Structure formats: structure tokens, C-alpha cells
């Protein structure tokens, strides 16, 4: 089985996913505010004294978000901003970067552009689930 690996390079990937994460966070916050208190884009626009179309374009990603506009939107939704830069950390038990999904597959299959590898069983063949110990 072959697959298509959509790879744009680490620099572009980091930029795109960061921009997407900020935008997604704003969309999620607005959606929650709307569900909680009927807070609309119109209310947001009025609070910030800007036209509703600007708010709409900011949320749809059609205009760049400046740091100030993010701060203003957070203020208008009565939310605090958390921002952090940190070194990537490796944790014990952390997954390795996935090469394919494991959903609905009994065995993990590696797809790497045609290079054949043996399938690796998700669990050893003789593996038995541990017996539950009866408590006294």
C-alpha cells in the first residue's frame, strides 16, 4: 500500500500550525462564549468599536491577526492570554512520531514509500491478558 506524505518542511509546518492554533483557539473561545451567554460577533464588534465584517474576517483568517488584535479579542471576550515558548521535551512512554494511523488496524503497518518492512504485531503473539487478582 502506498500513501501520500504531505510534507512542507519543519519551518513552514511550525508557522502554519502556530497560526492555525491561534485562530482555532479564538474560534473555540467565541463558540463557547456564544453557547454560554449568546455572545455574538456583533457584540464583540460593538465592544471593540469596529465593524462586524472585520471581526468576521479575523475569525475566518482572511485578515492577518496582529498581537494587538488578539489581545483586543481576548479582552472583549473577557479571557486571559497564555503564551509560552519552551524546549521540546521527551517523556518516558511518549509515542514516536507516527508514520501512519493505527485506527482499525490490528497490526501496525509502516508505510514509507515502498520500502518493505515486516509488519509488527501490536502485541506479542503469545501474549495473554493478566489474570485479575482476587482480593482477600
Amino acid at each position, binding site marked *: 500500500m502506498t500513501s501520500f506524505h*504531505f510534507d512542507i518542511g519543519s519551518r513552514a509546518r511550525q*508557522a*502554519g500550525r502556530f497560526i492555525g492554533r491561534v485562530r482555532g483557539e479564538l474560534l473555540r473561545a467565541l463558540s463557547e462564549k456564544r453557547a454560554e451567554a449568546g455572545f455574538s460577533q456583533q457584540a464583540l464588534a460593538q465592544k471593540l468599536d469596529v465593524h462586524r465584517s472585520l471581526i468576521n474576517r479575523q475569525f475566518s*483568517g482572511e485578515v492577518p491577526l496582529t498581537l494587538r488584535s488578539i489581545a483586543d479579542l481576548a479582552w472583549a471576550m473577557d479571557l486571559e492570554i497564555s503564551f509560552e515558548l519552551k524546549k521540546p521535551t521527551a517523556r518516558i512512554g511518549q*509515542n*514516536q*512520531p507516527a508514520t501512519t*494511523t493505527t485506527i482499525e488496524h490490528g497490526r501496525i503497518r509502516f508505510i514509507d514509500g515502498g520500502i518493505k518492512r515486516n509488519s509488527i504485531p501490536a502485541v506479542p503473539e503469545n501474549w495473554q491478558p493478566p489474570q485479575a487478582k482476587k482480593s482477600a
Partner: protein
Amino acid sequence: MSTIEEFVAASAILPIEVEMSAGDQPMRLLYGTPGFIVWLDEIVNGAEPKSRLGEATPAEQIDDLFHAFLLGRPLVYTRQFRAIRAEKNAVWELKTPDIRIFGWFLKKDCFVGVFGNWADQVKDHDLYRGYRIAIRRLRRELGVDDNLCVQGVSPGDVVSF
């Protein structure tokens, strides 16, 4: 009854992957037709619309969308995906500021992309109906059964939140 594996084995659709970070666990599946893969390849190679709206490049926008989709992150209905028309075996659209992707959900959380285009071209030329008809025709030609097409048109029918 046809299966996803059969379509993949026949190269009618191909699995699409994006780079995952350590700790990422894919929760959804993404496929594309060969024509869609060719279009994706053009995007990877730097294709740009006449006037870009988004801060990110088209390739970055798609990488982020696919990454969020595959990781099972919540997608905002109408902003990031929607059904073209409320009908049985609906055709669905995935959206970024500059890109529109048309396809259908084989199963819940399992999307196959068929066409991609610039958002402004799709809107300016009202291409929704054409893509919808073309995808329905393709499904007929492939022999896609109802079991490989999500019937519902509610957001919760096609993606887990």
C-alpha cells in the same frame, strides 16, 4: 459490499499523511483520489492564488487543517467544514482561508478528498454545484455503496468532537 481497503488496493484512493510530532496520536483518517493528490503536490510545490487572504501560505493552511483533522481536534462547523447540500450521501467541503477541498466522508472521521481549488475561484464562479455533481458521478463510477458514505448531514454525523 466494497471496503476502504479494496479502494486503496486498487489505487482509487490513497491514504494522506502529514508529519506528526512525538506524542501525536492520529484519531481520524484521510484519503485522496489520485487527481486530488496531484493537486496537493502542486500546493506543496508552492502554488499560490492570485491574491492570498490568509497569513499562512496555502501549503501551511492545508498542513494545519490536515494535522488538526487527523489528530481529532474539534473542527468548527461552517468555518472549517460543511455539507454542500443537506441531502443523503452529501458532498462535504473542508475549508481554510484560501482553500476549498471537496469530497465525502467514507465513515465518521474518515474523509476522502476529490477536488481542491482556491476559495476565491470557487466563490467567484460558484463551483459548488459542479463539484457536487462530479463527486456523485465519481462515486457511482467507483461503485461506492451506501456503507461507504455517511448518510447524515449533521456535523456530529461526520466528525467526533
